[in-house]
């Protein structure tokens, strides 16, 4: 019989240990914040695969996600939800991780389509990544090839109720288990994989450092890390070759 601890359950909110709340209104205020958070979600729909086709009907007048307070957002820095709508190729996955790391906490990831769960019908393909949750913490999966707008909305409502009840804490896992996620990323992208965001410093800032944040993979990252440089701007790819 496996131990109870081995069974993956949804992340439970950890009570801030030893810190007693004295203000009776603090709880009320927390509830209010959670309610508001769950009712105004901006989603960055980074449309990766064919599942994106179901989003326009879900967003527009037929199914109308805006009545739930879900709106599309154009930049990752102002978005709460990262929607991943279908298969992710390895090239795309790099961009997804860059995007995810730039989003502000608290942030949520929704994996739409079977392809994000276990490769879907592209399980044999050399080009697509298979299990999305190896590389990012995923809050809700919506399975289906492709899921109907009703399913998308029901997944969204699931996330909303998780936020309201304080269960949707998966974004903390990325900081707490950064070494694990980085290890999987390095396995796929090579040892010198690095992103512009300093996750370890952020983890320190949020107070989310655990003994799983740092490890052999982050040590490898430090070894290969290059300081960031400003991107070079040029008008066409050809220009440089000629000069």
């Amino acid at each position: 019989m496996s131990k109870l601890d081995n069974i993956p359950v949804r992340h439970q909110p950890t009570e801030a240990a030893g810190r007693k709340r004295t203000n009776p209104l603090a709880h009320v205020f927390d509830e209010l914040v959670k309610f508001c958070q769950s009712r105004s979600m901006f989603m960055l729909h980074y449309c990766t695969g064919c599942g994106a086709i179901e989003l326009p009907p879900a967003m527009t007048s037929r199914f109308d996600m805006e009545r739930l307070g879900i709106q599309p957002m154009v930049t990752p820095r102002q978005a709460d939800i990262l929607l991943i709508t279908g298969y992710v190729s390895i090239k795309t996955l790099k961009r997804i991780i860059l995007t995810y790391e730039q989003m502000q906490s608290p942030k949520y990831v929704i994996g739409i389509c079977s392809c994000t769960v276990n490769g879907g019908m592209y399980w044999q393909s050399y080009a697509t990544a298979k299990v999305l949750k190896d590389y990012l913490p995923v809050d809700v999966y919506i399975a289906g090839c492709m899921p109907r707008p009703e399913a998308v909305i029901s997944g969204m409502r699931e996330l909303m109720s998780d936020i309201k009840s304080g269960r949707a804490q998966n974004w903390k896992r990325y900081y707490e288990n950064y070494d694990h996620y980085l290890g999987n990323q390095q396995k796929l992208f090579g040892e010198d994989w690095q992103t512009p965001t300093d996750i370890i410093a952020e983890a320190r800032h949020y107070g989310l450092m655990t003994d799983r944040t740092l490890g052999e993979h982050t040590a490898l990252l430090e070894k290969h890390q290059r300081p960031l440089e400003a991107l070079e701007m040029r008008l066409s790819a050809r220009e440089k070759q000629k000069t």
Partner: protein
Amino acid sequence: MSKDLNIWLDDLLGDIENIQFKRKSSRRVRVDVGSEALPALLELLQGRASYVHLSAISCVDWIEDEEFELVYHVWSYETRSLVSAHTRIPREPGVYLSIYDLYQPAAFFERDIHEMFGVFFEGSPDMEKFILTEWDGPPPMRKEFDSEAFVNQHFEWEQYHPQWLKDLEEEGGGVTTRPEDIRL
């Protein structure tokens, strides 16, 4: 008018030696031609027979024959018909002539074929990586590339029936309706 052209084309192609020519329908013609004669044939089709549009170049890997088959699809707006010119080149060394000087869009297709099959086109303006810019494995569409082995080597799989679920089921819990019980 277009009918006359078709008849004329049939006559013309029928007269050339070393060419197998099959009319599949009123708007499709298949030509099998040796690799040395293909540029000349395309030049003829483009210059004399109004086949000015190169729709695509496709490539087939015949690994048992040790050959690549290249198919050039050219379209004529006059006769509204498509000629597919098939040619075969040896798999090793997999080098062929570019038809960039005849049809400029060929650069695009040749670059793609170079990337996916490793066929090198001499005279093509750019043989750099195109879509697979972050890929350093072998050309993935070649038949000897085993995609499944690659996948199993590089990826982990999600478990549909992990140990903890089996344990739960032994105790009488778990999934009530199994996927195999659902008949559609």
